[in-house]
C-alpha cells in the first residue's frame, strides 16, 4: 500500500510535483504515465525517501516515510531510472552486497542471490563484471537488486527501457508475477506497456495529476462521445446522408479504402447513445447491406496526447499578456 496525500515537492522555485494525491493497493500495479519532466521520478523519489517532500504526507504500508524512513526502506524495492550499479563488481558480488545491505544474513544471502538471478535470467552472467554487461543485462541487474529482499512494495522507474522485445516480454511477465501479492508502482512513457501491465493508470503533467483510472475508463472518459466504424455496400453519398440523419449522430467522416461498391464511415456518437439498432433498421429499409459495424477503441497513446496537450491558459499568464499589450 502506497499513499500520497497532497504531496508537493519544489526544487527551489521549480515545481517537481504539486498537490499530488495517489493510492496504490496491494496486488495492484499502478502505472505513472507522463512526458519527460512530468514529475514521475520525483513522485518515486518521495515514495522511496530519496527526496523529502516540501509539503504533504507519504505513507508506505501505513508507515509515514518522513517519520520512520528506515522502517519503510526495509520493505522497499526501488529501481531508479539509471540502475544503481557498481561496474567494478561481478553480478554475483554486487547482488550479494545488496542483499547484505538490505539486511539478509548467512544462508539467506546466497539463496536470495540465486533466486533473483534465476528470476531475471542472470544466472549465466553471474561471474561477469557489471561494467562489461550490455544495457539490457544492466537493466536486469537493476531489477534483481530491487527484488532481492522480497519487498512488499516495488517502485520501478521505467523498468523496460532499453530492453529488446524478447526481454521486455520476459520482464513484463516477471513484474506481473511479482505484483500478485505486492504493491507495484511503475512509470513509463511507453503507453502500450502501461495499458498492458497496469490495472490503474495515473497520468501526470507538469507535476500535477491529470487523470487516474483504468485504461478502459480513461479511454471512455476522454472521448466524450464514442466512435463507430460503419461499412455498407451502397453509394457513399446516399449512405452518408442516411447515417447523418440518425438521432445521436454528431459527426460522420468518410474513410478511405472501402471494398468496391462499398463505403466506410467513422461516426461520432453522442455520449450515452447507442445508434446501432436504428442504423441497422434504417439501412435495411433502404436495402443497403451492413458489412461491418464496430466501436473504435481509442488507444492510450491518443488519450495521453489528448490529456497532456490540452493546455489551459492560467489566469496569471492571461493577465500578464493583457498587461503587455
Amino acid at each position: 500500500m502506497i499513499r500520497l496525500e497532497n504531496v508537493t515537492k519544489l526544487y527551489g522555485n521549480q515545481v517537481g510535483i504539486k498537490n499530488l494525491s495517489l493510492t496504490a493497493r496491494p496486488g495492484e500495479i499502478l502505472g505513472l504515465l507522463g512526458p519527460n519532466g512530468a514529475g514521475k521520478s520525483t513522485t518515486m523519489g518521495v515514495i522511496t525517501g530519496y527526496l523529502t517532500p516540501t509539503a504533504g504526507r507519504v505513507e508506505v504500508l501505513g508507515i509515514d516515510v518522513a517519520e520512520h524512513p528506515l522502517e519503510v526502506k526495509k520493505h522497499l524495492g526501488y529501481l531508479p531510472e539509471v540502475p544503481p550499479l557498481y561496474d567494478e563488481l561481478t553480478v554475483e558480488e554486487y547482488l550479494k552486497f545488496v542483499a547484505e545491505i538490505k539486511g539478509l544474513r548467512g544462508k539467506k544471502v546466497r539463496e536470495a542471490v540465486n533466486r533473483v538471478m534465476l528470476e531475471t535470467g542472470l544466472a549465466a552472467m553471474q561471474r561477469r563484471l557489471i561494467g562489461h554487461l550490455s544495457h539490457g543485462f544492466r537493466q536486469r541487474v537493476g531489477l534483481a537488486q530491487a527484488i532481492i529482499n522480497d519487498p512488499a512494495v516495488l517502485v520501478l522507474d521505467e523498468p523496460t527501457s532499453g530492453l529488446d522485445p524478447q526481454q521486455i516480454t520476459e520482464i513484463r511477465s516477471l513484474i506481473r508475477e511479482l505484483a500478485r501479492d505486492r504493491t507495484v508502482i511503475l512509470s513509463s512513457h511507453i503507453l502500450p506497456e502501461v495499458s498492458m501491465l497496469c490495472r490503474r493508470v495515473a497520468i501526470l503533467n507538469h507535476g500535477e495529476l491529470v487523470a487516474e483510472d483504468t485504461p478502459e475508463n480513461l479511454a471512455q472518459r476522454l472521448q466524450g462521445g464514442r466512435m463507430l466504424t460503419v461499412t455498407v455496400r451502397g453509394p457513399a453519398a446516399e449512405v452518408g446522408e442516411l447515417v447523418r440523419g440518425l438521432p445521436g449522430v454528431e459527426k460522420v467522416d468518410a474513410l478511405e479504402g472501402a471494398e468496391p461498391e462499398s463505403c466506410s464511415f467513422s461516426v461520432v456518437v453522442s455520449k450515452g447513445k447507442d445508434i446501432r439498432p436504428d442504423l441497422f433498421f434504417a439501412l435495411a429499409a433502404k436495402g443497403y447491406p451492413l458489412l461491418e459495424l464496430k466501436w473504435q477503441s481509442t488507444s492510450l497513446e491518443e488519450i495521453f496526447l489528448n490529456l497532456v496537450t490540452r493546455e489551459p491558459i492560467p489566469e496569471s499568464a492571461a493577465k500578464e499578456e493583457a498587461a503587455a499589450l
Partner: protein
Amino acid sequence: MNVWYLAKKELRSYLLSPLAWVLLAVYFALGGYFFSGAIIITGRADMTGYFANMAITLLFVVPALTMRLWAEEEARGTARFLLTAPLTVTEVVTAKFLAALALMLLAELVSLVYVLILSRLGSPDWGIIFASYLGFTLLMAACLAVGLFASSISSSQMVAGLTAFGLLLLLWVVDWVSSSVPAGLGSVLKALSFPGHLIDFLKGMVVTDHIVFYLSAVFFFLFLAVESIAKRTWA
C-alpha cells in the same frame, strides 16, 4: 554490521581500481626516497625525517584517494541506492572513512620495513618511533575526513579533489601569519594547523591535546559530510 558490509565493499572497490595502486606506488616511491634521504643526511636511526616529509605527500595523496568516495556515488546514480536502502547516512559515511583509513594503514604497514632496516643499522628509540606512527596516523585520519567531506559536496570528482586539496593546504599553512596578527587570533590560527600538532609526536611526545585535536577534526569533518549528504534529500 551495516558499516562492516559497506566498508568491505568500499575497500574492495579501492583495490579493484587502478587509481589506488598507482597512488600506493607513488606513495612508496616517495617514502623510499624520503627514508633513505633522511638517513644519508642525518645519519640517525630514526623515522622523524621520513614522517615529516610523508606528511606533505598526504596533501595530494589524500584528495586523490578520497575524491571518489561520495562524488562517484552521485555521478553513477548509486547514491540513490544507498539513500533508499535501510541505512543511515552516518553508517555510509563511517564506512567510507574506515575503508579509506584501512587502505592508508595498509600503506603504513609496508613502511614497517623501514623500521626493520633501522633496527638492523642502529639502535632506534622505540618510543619516538611509536609516537611518530601514532601522530602520523592521526594526521592521516584527519586529512581523510577533510577529503571525505570535500567529496560529499559535489558529484564531480575533480571538484571534490580540488576542494580537498585547497582545504588541506589552507589547514597546512593557516598558522603562517600567526606571529603578524593580534595574539588572540594568532594562537587560534596556530591551534588549527594540521602539521603543527604533529611536531610533538615526531619528538617522541604523546600529548593528549594533539590527540584530541586530530580526533575532533575527524568527527567535525565527518559530521559535515553526513549533513551535506543528508541535506541532499531536501534539494
